[in-house]
Structure formats: structure tokens, C-alpha cells
């Protein structure tokens, strides 16, 4: 028997860290197609995130609350600054804006059902308000977007709050996109567009250009709705200190701040991955802006982008947010990325957990599609129940942490309850590095 020897004259194949296999496939894809890659979702790269923070909990110097017995409030009131009818939610976890068009009517209904079951709000998107989502959402936020697709004063008056969208975390500075596959007759009719065309919505509002104009726009919206409805202003995380200051100056009741982990229905991969800030880096400057104006907790701050667990919720609130919004996680709760669909994902060249061709309209889960057969797969009642379950878990998890920190309400969580695990996260959140009294970035070093 001959023994086989390893060939020591050659090294093993080595992939480049710069030209890694995914990057090589990107170059090959670009060369083959001649068009940028479009996908859904938020950034997929590893970023400083809530995982880089830890709660300290109570011990000798702080007094915890009993896990299941002692009260830990979770409610939040939004829009107390100017609106006659602020919104009162039972949990600070809200559903972010997602359009009918990007999502099926069944998915929108399921989001409304799930959110309403736990006493929180859901939000329309580019394309207007459908009767299904109004009917199934006890609290519905109406997005006011640059495209004004489906924008109708009757719907404005039916809304519980109005969210003026300046930008979103996945693409600050970018407009919407809905490819022809998803412009079904109903979507086309609602948006007043030809069927089947690739639709791009504007990145700038058509009738105002800066904070001075926005102030007048907000006055107009309030005049049309009898000063009843809270006015939110949503920005993508880019220059949060200034953006939040200017939103407040313009008269916002609530500021929504969306980090780059926040999803989109469709945008260029290069945009998603290279523009904007991770939410972790954006919260403290936003809160600082509100504090400097003397309006922290008076103008409420909703943060979004990569909220997955009750720990993320608790950390966002401890850093100074009043509420959070979820989008991607809500879709997963409805059934997106289900392992049950592995075979169908394989036909689309992907696997459960990595599916991001939300722009394509072929979603086997029936969520990011307008195909009648596919969308019929999503049972809005069952989907709504799954979402309600998930929202309840997020709330209970956040309460678990808050009680351990001795807090009788989620809003009593504070930065002093947190430490950072990395120097980067510490510098971004102005928290001390765990186990030290070092605040990286403070005092010039």
C-alpha cells in the first residue's frame, strides 16, 4: 500500500480579504448585467450595534424589582407637544412604515391586526392608505411622502397621526423604488401610474425644500386636520444632531430616526451598504439635540433600524428614545424567511434567512409580493397572531431587563444602566467601556 503524501510545495488556496468570494461575485454580476444590484432589506454588514452594550442590573447600590409581581409600566404617549389628540400606546414597540405595493394587502392587514392586538400603532407607506389596513389598525400613522402617491385629504383626516417622511435609514437621500413586477392593477390605480412600469418615487418633497418651508407645511397639515393629529418627522440617520434639531424647529411633535439597518422594499445594494449611520451611533446625538432644546421627552423620539429583541428595545430606551419601530423583524414574525420555505427559496437561489429579493415580487411567504396566488398564502389572522406574540415577547423581555435594573417603567431606564463592550460602541453611545471608568471620546481621548 502506497502512502499518499501532502504536496508541501504548494500553499492552500487563499481567498483575498479584499476581493472575498462575495465581492468577486458582485463584480461578476455587474459585468454580466450592466445594472446595479437592487434588493430589499437593510445593511447586512457587521456594525456596532446594541449587542455591543450590556445592562449592569441591580445589586448592592441599586434595588431590583420582583420579576413577575412588581409593576413595570410600558405605555408611551406620543405627540404631546402641539397635537390635541396625542397617541397613547400600551407598548413602546411600533410598526414602521411599509407600503401596500411593497407588501401584499394580506401582509398589511396582518400588521394591523398584530399591532392592534397589543395596543400599538402601524404605519402606511408610499402608495397611500388601504381600507384593509385602516380597518384593522386601531392606531394608524399616515405617511406623507415625497411621491404623495395615493395622498388624499380624506385619508389624512382618517389617520391617527401623520408622519412626514424626509428619509429612511436604508437610503438617506434616496427615493422609493417599486419594480414593474409589483405594479399590479390595484397598486397602479392607487398610485396613478401605468401598470407594470418600474416606478421610482421622488427623493425630495415637491412643495417644500428645507426646515423653514417644512414649518409652513406642518402648519398647513395641522390646519387641515384641526390641530388634532400628532405630526411625526422621519429622518434617516445621517446627521442626527442637526436633523433632529431642525425637525423640532419645524414643529414636529415626534421625531422618527431610522438607522441603516432599517429595511427598504427595494434599493441599490451599494446605497443600502454605504450610506447612513448605524442606529447605535445616531441615538445619543439625537437625544442630545432634544436635551439641548429642553425638549427631551416633550418631543418624543422613535428609533428604528435593527431592533430584534426586548434587549434592543430596552437599550434604545435607556439611551433616551421614547419608543422604537420594527419593520424587518415584523415581517419575519409574519413568516418571512421561514425554514418551511427552504425548497422554494432554493429555486430563487437563496436560503431561509438570506432572502432579500423583496423587489422581485416572488416572495414564497406571500409578504413582499402582489402576486395573488403567493399573497393568498399569508393568512392575515394567523400572521397577525404571530406578530402580536412577538410584540408581547419584546415587551416582556424589555420589562425583564427594566425590573432587573430596578425600574418601575421602561422609560426609567437610563444610560447609567448601561456599559459598552467595545471602544467603538462606547464612543458612539457616550457610555463607559465595561469594567472601566473610561468614556472613549470624552475629554479629548
Amino acid at each position, binding site marked *: 500500500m502506497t502512502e499518499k503524501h501532502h504536496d508541501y510545495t504548494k500553499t492552500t488556496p487563499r481567498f483575498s480579504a479584499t476581493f472575498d468570494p462575495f465581492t468577486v461575485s458582485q463584480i461578476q454580476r455587474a459585468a454580466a448585467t450592466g445594472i446595479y444590484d437592487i434588493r430589499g432589506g437593510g445593511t447586512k454588514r457587521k456594525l456596532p450595534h446594541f449587542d455591543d452594550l450590556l445592562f449592569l442590573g441591580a445589586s448592592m447600590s441599586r434595588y431590583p424589582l420582583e420579576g413577575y409581581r412588581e409593576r413595570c409600566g410600558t405605555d408611551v404617549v406620543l405627540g404631546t407637544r402641539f397635537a390635541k389628540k396625542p397617541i397613547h400606546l400600551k407598548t413602546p414597540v411600533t410598526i414602521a412604515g411599509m407600503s401596500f405595493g411593497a407588501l401584499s394587502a394580506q401582509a398589511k392587514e396582518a400588521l394591523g391586526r398584530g399591532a392592534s392586538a397589543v395596543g400599538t400603532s402601524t404605519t402606511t407607506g408610499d402608495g397611500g392608505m388601504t381600507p384593509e389596513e385602516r380597518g384593522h389598525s386601531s392606531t394608524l400613522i399616515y405617511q406623507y411622502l415625497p411621491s404623495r402617491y395615493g*395622498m388624499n385629504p380624506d385619508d389624512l383626516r382618517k389617520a391617527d397621526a401623520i408622519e412626514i417622511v424626509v428619509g429612511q435609514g436604508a437610503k438617506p437621500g434616496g427615493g422609493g423604488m417599486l419594480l414593474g413586477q409589483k405594479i399590479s392593477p390595484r397598486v397602479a390605480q392607487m398610485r396613478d401610474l401605468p401598470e407594470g412600469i418600474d416606478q421610482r418615487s421622488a427623493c425630495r418633497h*415637491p412643495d417644500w425644500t428645507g426646515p423653514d418651508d417644512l414649518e409652513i407645511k406642518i402648519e398647513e397639515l395641522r390646519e387641515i386636520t384641526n390641530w388634532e393629529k400628532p405630526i411625526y418627522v422621519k429622518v434617516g440617520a445621517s446627521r442626527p444632531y442637526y436633523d433632529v434639531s431642525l425637525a423640532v424647529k419645524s414643529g414636529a411633535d415626534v421625531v422618527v430616526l431610522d438607522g441603516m439597518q432599517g429595511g427598504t422594499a427595494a434599493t441599490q445594494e451599494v446605497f443600502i451598504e454605504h450610506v447612513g449611520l448605524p442606529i447605535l451611533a445616531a441615538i445619543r446625538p439625537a437625544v442630545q439635540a432634544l436635551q439641548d432644546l429642553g425638549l427631551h421627552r416633550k418631543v418624543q423620539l422613535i428609533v428604528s433600524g435593527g431592533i430584534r429583541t426586548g434587549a434592543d428595545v430596552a437599550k434604545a430606551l435607556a439611551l433616551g428614545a421614547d419608543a422604537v419601530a420594527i419593520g424587518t423583524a415584523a415581517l419575519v414574525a409574519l413568516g418571512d424567511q421561514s425554514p418551511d420555505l427552504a425548497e422554494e427559496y432554493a429555486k430563487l437561489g437563496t436560503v431561509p434567512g438570506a432572502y432579500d429579493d423583496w423587489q422581485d415580487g416572488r416572495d414564497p411567504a406571500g409578504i413582499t409580493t402582489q402576486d395573488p396566488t403567493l399573497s393568498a398564502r399569508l393568512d392575515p389572522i394567523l400572521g397577525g397572531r404571530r406578530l402580536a406574540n412577538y410584540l408581547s415577547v419584546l415587551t416582556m423581555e424589555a420589562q425583564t431587563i427594566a425590573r432587573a435594573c430596578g425600574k418601575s417603567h421602561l422609560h426609567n431606564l437610563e444610560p447609567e444602566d448601561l456599559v459598552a463592550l467595545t471602544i467603538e460602541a462606547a464612543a458612539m453611545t457616550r457610555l463607559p467601556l465595561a469594567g472601566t471608568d473610561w468614556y472613549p471620546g470624552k475629554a479629548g481621548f
Partner: protein
Amino acid sequence: MQTIDLNTTTLRELNSRLQTENAGASWQVANPNGRHALAVGLTQPIEVTIEGHAGYYAAGMNQQASVVINGNAGQGVAENMMSGRVHVKGNASSSAGATAHGGLLVIEGDAGARCGISMKGVDIVVRGSIGHMSAFMAQSGNLVVCGDAGEALGDSLYETRIFVRGKVRGLGADCEEKDMTPEDRAIVTSLLEKAGVTDCKAEDFRLYGSARTLYHFNVDNASAY
């Protein structure tokens, strides 16, 4: 005719009175003094005359009402109008008729930049000229311009028809001149009549519309995106 004097009445009171379901048939607004958000969110078929200049968003989101501005109008006059009629006797600033879904907007003077931006079914008649980037991403409806049009007219246009009698400084991406059919001329004639324009003839207008080359992504159009 009921009169509201803005020297002695707040904007809130003005709009609340005009927005009520049984507001009287005819209203006059005295001393508007360029106030923003005048006569916005009206829902009833009433007549409102603003006796002077109006600021931003005059008659915004109008439904059914007929609003006359005896003066100039600021940015976004009749923005997102659904139905009814808004008539500006003077000039209008930028974004006149922005995103409006229906009704008729008449501007007797000139309109600034972005006239009819993202319009979604409204008819707009401008007796004078319009500024640059007008009818940007305009989706449907008709824009009739008796004077000239500025640069980048109809950029990224969808299905709005743009009729211009004077010179066009330049066309935006995917906007092209089209042949006028008898139906197109009938549209112009009818809109001129509704707008009370008696000194222009449909035959003198040229039609601009979407070349529809940007309706689907195409690498050969990369520089136009």
C-alpha cells in the same frame, strides 16, 4: 357673502369656518397679507375669494370649493387639490398645483419653477409662462401654458400632457414633442374656455409627453437616471 377679516380673525378660525359642513355658499377673505395655509382642506362646494396676496399652500388639498385669489400666490398653491377650482389672478410661486389629483388650477400671470410637479390628474392652465423643472415626474392630467416654459420641462414624465404655446427652453429627461391629434386640440380648447382664456387658439400649442424610455431600467439609459 360673508367676510372674514384676517386683521381681526386668526387663521385657525378662518379655516375652521370654511371647513365646516354647512359653511355658507360665498366667502370673502379680507387682508390676507400673504398669510400661509389660507383656505386649506376645504370640502364643500363653496366660493371663497381671497382679496389680496396669499402665502404658501393657499387652497391646499382643495375638494369641491372654488377659490379665487385676487393677488399673487406663494409656493404650492392648490397643492394636492382633489377637485374644485383655484384661480390665481396674479402670479404663482413654485410648485403650483403640486401632486394635485383633480380639479382646475388657473394662473392668470406666470408660475414659478416646478409648476405641476408630480401632478396626478389635475388640469392646470397658465396664461403666462412657467419656470424650470415644471411637470417634473408628472403622472397624469393636462398642463396648458400660453406663454413659455423654462428648462427641463417634463423631466421624468409619466402620462401628463403638456401643451405650450410659446418657446420651450429645454426638455427634461424622457420628455419629447408629440403630434397633436384632434382630441388633444379639443382638450386645449375646452381647458382654455373653462379658464376664461379668450385670446389663445388650440392650433398655436405644441404637445409634449413622455417618450416612455425610462419606464423600465435599461443600462443604455444610465446617464439619464
